[in-house]
């Protein structure tokens, strides 16, 4: 049974990188263009779902030893904390700010706290979507037996 799903697996191995790169692009585009944490997270989730389809739960879990439920909570925590960060500086809750940082490779780069918020959102979405998928697929396996 080794030859099973050989096309799917080969395509997946290639496509996963494209999808992940696209996810990163979407995530970073979110500041001025359509995109952002929500879609970025969902795209990563779809990449991992593709992995799940091509391989199996065990392989994905050994490859990605993350508890996605915890990841979701951590994401929300990050998002809330960036909101609270504004309170520390005396602004209203959720106020976002940005500054320009000079990075060695990219030159003048805009850096905004909204990105941190988006990281949180991305984590939350990723975690929620994947924990739903994992739960349901695990449940179906149990049910079939």
């Amino acid at each position, binding site marked *: 049974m080794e030859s099973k799903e050989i096309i799917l697996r080969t395509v997946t191995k290639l496509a996963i990188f494209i999808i992940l790169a696209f996810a990163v692009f979407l995530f970073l585009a979110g500041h001025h263009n359509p995109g952002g944490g929500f879609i970025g997270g969902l795209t990563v989730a779809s990449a991992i779902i593709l992995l799940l389809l091509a391989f199996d739960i065990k392989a994905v879990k050994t490859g990605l030893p993350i508890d996605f439920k915890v990841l979701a*909570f*951590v994401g929300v*925590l990050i998002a*809330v904390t960036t909101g609270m960060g504004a*309170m520390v500086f*005396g*602004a*209203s*809750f*959720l106020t976002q700010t940005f500054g320009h940082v000079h990075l060695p490779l990219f030159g003048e780069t805009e850096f905004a706290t909204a990105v941190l918020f988006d990281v949180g959102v991305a984590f939350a979405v990723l975690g929620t979507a994947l924990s739903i998928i994992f739960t349901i697929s695990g449940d179906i396996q149990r049910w079939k037996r």
Partner: protein
Amino acid sequence: MSCGVPMMNNLVILPLLIPLVTGILMGIYKNNLPLQRRVSLFSLAVNFGVSLYLVQWVAGSGIRILELGGWPAPFGIVLVLDLLAALLLTATALVGFACLLYAVHSIGEDKERHYFYPLFHFLLVGVNGSFLTGDLFNLFVFFEVMLFASYVLLSLGGTKIQLQETVKYAVINTLSSTLFVVGIAYLYSVTGTLNMAHLSVRIAEVGQAGFLTVVAVVFLIVFSLKAGLLLYFWLPGSYMAPPGAVGAIFAALLTKVGIYVIFRMYTLLFYHQPEITHWLMAVMAGLTMLLGGIGAIAQWDIRGILVYNVVISVGFIISGLVFATSDALVGAVYYTMHDIVLKALLFLLGGTVIAIAGTGKIKEMSGLIRSHPLLGWMFFLTLLALSGVPPLSGFVGKVLIIKEGLSLGSGHRGFYLLAGIGLVSSLMVLYSLLKVFINGFWGETVLSTEMEKGTERGLVFPCLLLTAVSLFLGLGAELLYPYVDQAIITMLNPGLYIEAVLGEVF
């Protein structure tokens, strides 16, 4: 347009943030139960302290707003803290603390592991958010947060009854939320805004013509579904299903959020056509009290009786809003606070009784007062307070509402009827709870201490706490009265609310 020092206004969001962050942390450390218990209780205690401070603060310096992200009011999302909200926040934190304390001893480790504490805190986020928000759509979001947590809490444990009740509860609430969205859509089409203060201005400008009254009635239906005003048919089943602590927090808070929103909407937005909306509310309130009373009398299950008592009190509070004089409103707000505390207490006591007797049927239990005198007398006290016997907490609210009803009755015959129904409903409450008391606590002691199914250890303290608060609400009414009185001023003068939110521009 932002008024005051923004740093200080950030305090407004604390009652929302504390449970949120706690809930998240509880989710991350979901396997460390001792930590979860301690941190949960601690966070609720802090929340209570903050709420008390907020009450003082708002009473001292007027309505406080927080513009999220620094966006000015009609455009951004805004949180508004007036005294009404602050008082209810305090009651919520208190009841949450007691219920959580009860839950720690009663809910069982399995449920604790399955995200009981995060859900509990998210429920509080939803409730507090609904109290705080000054934006209609945000209200919808917080409602959904609250409802979602409540669905999961309701089905947590997954017994048959819980599952089948959750299905009905969730479907009905989804439909009513959809109606809420429909109402929001219509309101937006007419007024072009969703900020409550701005809405109030716009509605006052166009004078609540026919279409807006229709929207008002749509909202009335939505919130009566949530509050259990006449449309309470889903309520008994779903509040009976969950374990004691969850049932208590549901009974104490969920319907009250609906009531709070009805207060807000019909004193701030739709106050121009009282002869339509308030008349409708009067009919609904009267019917609710009567039907709830009949339901309570007809039940022979302790939970059933308690659940129908929730229904009765909803009707009673709304009848206070219908009378809409300042005294009646004071009574209604006071009664709401009293009811939050007492309904939680009642459900906790009921849960304890069930835990001890192992059954909910009052015919099968008897003479519990001999082995559990404290429990019995607390129940008796609650019973008296709920039916409004003088020095206890129910009295102030009841007397104010009914007095206003009777004095208004000379102008409008229907108000006599409503006040009369209010009185009759008190009798029904008294009768139904006395039935529990006589059957459950008096008579021959059939259960010896060894035969009891559960213990009351750890369960009594939260009840004692709430009883003490109830006594304070009754005996310390003089102390509390100025705050409630001040809360009413905002309800009677929407202008104050509008000015606080939108600044001097309008």
